[in-house]
């Protein structure tokens, strides 16, 4: 279906105890578009992304990802790649081997998928033989992004991908995300950095606007 959006959520309610976090939130992201949700800390950006990634069940509301309910099926996770949750790394597997594992699980040849170029681009080439737990938090963040971008996907859901990246790192990641959208992928992310979001080719929308009755993300 041509009109079917990548993300279509409406009437989302989530509360933690007596504290409402999402109140009647709606978001629609067309296929091939980029949307960046901004807002102050604690306003519910991560909660929204977790609900859309099927990692959290909303109290109320309807969510459709490519026309289907998000779930734990392999089909869903082959379409959707996310950094909403930090990974637990495999024991005794180096940075490079993690990237190769992800590529091969998706039927890609690691060389053709550009593992070396990705590690170079994310500033991890010098750490290819390290085990991920020994990396700094910024390097782990870059490795997670590299793994997410290396594998094929139709929708990227990223939670503050610019965090713990230096200036050069932000520019590199923004260029990669922009290319991802240009190649037909759909991008949904939360960020505090408007410059980074614009450089990523994402349209900026605020959490407040999503909560309005007519609030849409695109």
């Amino acid at each position: 279906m041509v009109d079917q959006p990548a993300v279509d959520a409406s009437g989302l309610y989530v509360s933690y105890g007596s504290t409402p976090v999402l109140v009647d939130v709606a978001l629609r992201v067309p296929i091939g578009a980029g949307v960046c949700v901004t807002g102050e800390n604690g306003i519910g950006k991560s909660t929204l992304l977790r609900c859309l990634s099927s990692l959290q069940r909303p109290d109320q509301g309807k969510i459709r990802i490519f026309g289907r309910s998000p779930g734990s099926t392999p089909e869903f996770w082959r379409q959707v790649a996310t950094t909403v949750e930090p990974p637990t790394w495999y024991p005794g597997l180096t940075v490079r081997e993690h990237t190769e594992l992800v590529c091969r699980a998706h039927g890609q040849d690691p060389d053709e998928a550009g593992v070396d170029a990705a590690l170079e681009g994310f500033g991890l080439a010098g750490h290819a033989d390290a085990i991920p737990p020994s990396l700094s938090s910024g390097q782990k963040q870059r490795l997670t992004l590299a793994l997410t971008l290396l594998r094929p996907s139709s929708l990227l859901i990223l939670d503050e991908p610019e965090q713990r990246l230096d200036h050069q790192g932000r520019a590199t990641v923004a260029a990669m995300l922009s290319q991802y959208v240009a190649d037909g992928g759909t991008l949904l992310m939360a960020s505090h950095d408007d410059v980074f979001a614009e450089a990523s080719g994402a349209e900026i929308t605020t959490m407040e606007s999503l909560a309005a009755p007519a609030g849409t993300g695109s």
Partner: protein
Amino acid sequence: MTIQPTDFGTLRRWVRRTQSDHRERGATAGNIYFAVLFIAVVGGMLHRQLAVIFWPVHPNASELAGSALVLAGVGGLFLALRRLGPLGLSRPAASWFLTAPVSRRRLLVPSLRLAAAGAGLAGALYGVAVVGHVADRPMPAAEGALLPVVGALLGIVILLAAVAAQSGPAWGGWADNLAYLLLAAGLTGFVVDSVIDAPRATASWPTTAVAATTAALALVVIVLLAIAVTRLAGTPNDRILEAAKTAGTLLDSAFGVEPSFVTEMVERRYWANRRLRSVRLWRRLPVLTAQDLLLVRRRPRRLLWIAGAVALPTLLAHAPAWVLAAAVLLGGMLAGGVSTGNVRTDAGNPVMLRLLGLDSRSAITQRLWVPTLLAGLWYAAALALLDALGDLPAGPWWALGIALAPVGSVAAIRKARAGFVRNELLPLDTPMGTLSPGPLVNSVVGPDALLLGLPALVEIAQGHPLSWTTVLVQAVVSVIGARAYVSGTTATDRVELAAIP
């Protein structure tokens, strides 16, 4: 600006007084009362079993077994002390005192004192057990009193060697390897002792020799202790912090009844100290199988231990046959567990599985191959060795080992998927007090799958010659059981591995 060191003794007294003020009146006395009562009750209940372990009615081990016990004890105690630190601090003390201007020596002396008491006690108890099992009776009273003292002194010498190694000298790694060798030599001694008819100790050792050994060891302990105390301040901070984390994790594990905390810590430290070079995963194999093989390739020492453990069932050759059979089945599960660290990671947190986009059935099927190979090889070797030594009746036991391969691998994978202990389960009221079933349930998940090896267990227990029909029955049960496990606990439309399948 010069900062004067604070008197650590005063500081510690202040901390203890303040902590004591926050406790209820008589809480400490109550704790001591309950600890003493617990020891008295357990000691009263288990005194017969303790006597069998420490001082049997008649000595029942050969001199070779005694030597093996000593070698294994020395190696094992050194390795245990090295893993624990041995010098450490509590986590609060490591956070607040290690960075404070206090005398490092005075800070660490209590830890050394505690470690020396522990090592001395362990050495003395071990010494009593060795003497009780090996030494000829009747024994002169003086000798009977001195031999545990020799054990205690030897325990303290081993502790002081471990303390010296904690400072990070170049020989630390070699000392660890030597301890591993001693442990392996001790275990080999047991196996040889069970195979040959080694002679018993016929005469007690001369009292003068025992007294001289005790005096010499006491002198060594005094000299080494003096050296250790003068060098205490040189113990590197990172080693003390590491020991503090170890002690904290062990306490967390004990109070939370959650052994996985310790497993994770050991695993994390192992990999943190390894220097790896990236290699390509084998292209012809399924990707997760290739990853498991790589993990096994990177644990050569564990493989070596598993290979050596093939001989351990021979120690049970004279035990009831069903005990031998159960031990063999359990051994295959442990062998298959060498590569299950990846399954444990996926069961604990499925983020990587989601990133890989593989369904749980494909993932578990791919992950079963390497444990099947390891368990099959182990079972075949262990049963073939028992057969060769005449501990089993005639038959193609190696083939039964291969038929058992899926049993060991399913048990190993099931154990790895067990996840955290479920402490939310309703506690059971028993005549012995309230019992939390969580740890019990958790310890059973995994070994319960060994029931698939029932045909082999019955065959070994009955002691009849093994026929190819039994091998075939076991093979069919193993394969059907493994297939049922995979299809019953995984799905093609689900990525996550359920915590308890």
